[in-house]
């Protein structure tokens, strides 16, 4: 144990304390200081903690929350990194806050959401016992440049983790290719049937075989490039699943009911979150929980009682109506939200989109043109108005115009306070779709105005 590590931990704790006293929400800064003082301090603290790492493009936060709920049901002591502090610095901070000054952790387990690009660095210090890769989609291209580099980053992380049991989304041909040739124990999970009656048309992120570049055949697609794929040329195909959904029984605005197979017996599970993408999140949590040998009934209880994460289909009760916030951050995720809304909304409601272009949102907003907003017009009279906010409100308004919406059904409100005022006045239920930084700032505004808990106090 080096003195340098002790100093780093102490510095981290003090900075965090000061930030809390000053009521600021910075989650990465204390970790930055710790890493600066002792780059390997995370390794010291992570020793002896059973760590579960959740990475992939979409669904990291929700999956992490679901795994936590499973651990709660199992009565295991753990900590986790909340509110999107998922880079090396944020993760270091979280470990420091849960360790004594000598780096000895107070909890047995850690559930760590890890940014795809940060995973290769984090895995140098943390010897994960479990890894979940949720899926790989085209994300903020200006940050990751291309899918290939995202994938090589995750692959490097997996290579750094020879002792991990890995839960892999079998329906994602890009994800399954990551564990080719590794000796780890793999648990494949997937959906053995289509999810939606009516899919939005969208660009596939993986149309061609990753090995031989021949176009894949699909028996069915669940959404995006996910589904039962096989390559007619080289035989690369979706692997058999160990944890899987056999049938989507019903779905509504609050939940999806599926038949889930974790072991021998099929169980009916009401996932306490709507949308097909949350079926995958529940499956990935169930796969990890199976790997950890948690009791099957406890997994089912956890997934059906689970309450949603930060800005991911989060519910607020504002002025006697329901306001739901659903993060949008890339075309695949956004199309999922559009799939869900257009298949599920049955009453008149108000939509609000808030688009920023800071680094955490992705500075290139071109992706709005790959998201199928055209689909919204199928809601007809149930969607008489869309409010548009954020720094790039004009671009979003323009996108909706070209998606077929008439100009009198779009209102640009760039000022956040005015936007919230208008949402407050609305009579019908509201769906707010913000990009990441817009979600943080708008959620904060809602919290202040309606006296909800601030996120750093969670």
């Amino acid at each position, binding site marked *: 144990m080096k003195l340098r590590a002790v100093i780093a931990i102490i510095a981290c704790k003090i900075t965090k304390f000061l930030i809390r006293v000053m009521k600021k929400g910075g989650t990465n800064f204390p970790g930055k200081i710790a890493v600066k003082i002792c780059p390997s301090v995370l390794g010291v603290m992570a020793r002896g903690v059973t760590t579960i790492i959740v990475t992939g493009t979409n669904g990291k936060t929700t999956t992490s929350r679901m795994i936590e709920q499973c651990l709660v049901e199992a009565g295991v002591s753990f900590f986790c990194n909340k509110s999107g502090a998922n880079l090396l610095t944020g993760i270091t901070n979280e470990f420091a806050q849960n360790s004594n000054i000598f780096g000895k952790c107070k909890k047995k387990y850690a559930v760590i959401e890890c940014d795809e690009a940060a995973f290769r660095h984090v895995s140098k210090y943390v010897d994960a016992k479990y890894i979940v890769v949720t899926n790989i989609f085209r994300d903020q291209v*200006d940050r990751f440049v291309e899918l290939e580099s995202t994938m090589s980053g995750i692959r490097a992380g997996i290579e750094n983790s020879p002792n991990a049991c890995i839960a892999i989304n079998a329906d994602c041909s890009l994800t399954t290719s990551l564990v080719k040739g590794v000796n780890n124990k793999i648990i494949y999970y997937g959906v053995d049937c289509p999810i939606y009656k009516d899919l939005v048309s969208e660009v596939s992120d993986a149309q*061609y075989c990753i090995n031989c570049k021949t176009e894949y055949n699909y028996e069915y697609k669940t959404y995006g490039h996910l589904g039962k794929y096989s390559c007619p040329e080289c035989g690369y195909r979706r692997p058999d699943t160990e944890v899987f959904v056999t049938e989507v029984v019903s779905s509504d605005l609050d939940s999806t009911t599926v038949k889930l197979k974790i072991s021998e017996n099929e169980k009916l599970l009401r996932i306490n979150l709507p949308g097909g993408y949350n079926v995958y999140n529940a499956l990935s949590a169930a796969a990890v929980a199976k790997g950890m040998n948690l009791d099957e009934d406890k997994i089912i209880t956890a997934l059906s009682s689970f309450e949603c994460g930060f800005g991911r289909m989060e519910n607020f009760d504002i002025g006697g109506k329901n306001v739901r916030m659903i993060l949008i951050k890339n075309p695949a995720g956004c199309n999922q939200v559009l799939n869900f809304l257009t298949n599920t909304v049955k009453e008149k409601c108000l939509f609000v989109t808030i688009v920023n272009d800071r680094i955490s949102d992705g500075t*290139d907003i*071109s992706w*709005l043109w790959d998201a199928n907003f055209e689909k919204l017009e199928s809601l007809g009279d149930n969607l008489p108005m869309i409010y548009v906010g954020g720094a790039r409100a004009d*671009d979003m*308004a323009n*996108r909706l115009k070209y998606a077929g919406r008439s100009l009198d059904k779009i209102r640009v409100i760039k000022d956040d306070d005015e936007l919230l005022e208008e949402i407050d006045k609305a009579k019908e239920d509201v769906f707010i779709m913000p990009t990441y930084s817009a979600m943080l700032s708008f959620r904060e505004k809602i919290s202040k105005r309606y006296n909800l808990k601030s996120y750093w106090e969670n």
Partner: protein
Amino acid sequence: MDELKICYLYPDVLNLFSDSGNVTCMLKRLEWRGMKADVTEVPVGAKLNVNDYDLFFIGGGQDFENGVQISDFFGEKSKEIKKAVEDEKVFLAVCTGYQLLGNYYKATDGTQYDLSGAVNFHTIGTKDRFIGNYCFESEELSGLKIVGFENHAGKTYLSDGVKPLGKVLTGNGNNGEDMTEGARYKNVFASYAHGALLPKNPVLADKILATALERKYNKKFDLSPLDDTFELNANKYMVDRLLG
């Protein structure tokens, strides 16, 4: 009814940066004026007969998929495209699609990929990328300020007979050295700008549509004005942000 036949080349692989918004934009702007467009997608492996179309669109893609696409582009398609360019068919080419129209692309490992040579320029691959919002000015369109988002590792150098689409005001454009952005040759409009490009630069969109209509019907087209409030607000927001 006046109608344009649009060929959307490689929508299956050159689709990384949502450049298909340009096709959506052209379709709508014709439709709002009581005209029509018919879009045919020509993916990898499909045959291309350039005589069937008035306007061609090619977008940007990523490296792995370029591997699939470039081999398809060599040979027949490449010759057809060169023929169409000489025949003054209208092209909108963005990023990778832009690069494919040049003489060659020299990769960072030194490999030279000979391309269609439809337009006299070449591109040199580099390890750095030019990434960000940028703005350039079109002399041809009376000083029109065009905005977009560039994201490319190739540096493009124009040669004889080819003009730039615009002069860089902020950002990098073709190569970050000579202030040029994009290329203009006959009826080819080529650019590095994503965004998508046309929806927030409606004057350029209409210029391309009018050029295609004029070539097809062999008469002058003055496109009727549209309510471009959102389009121009989106443009102005970025111009103000970049140029202050």
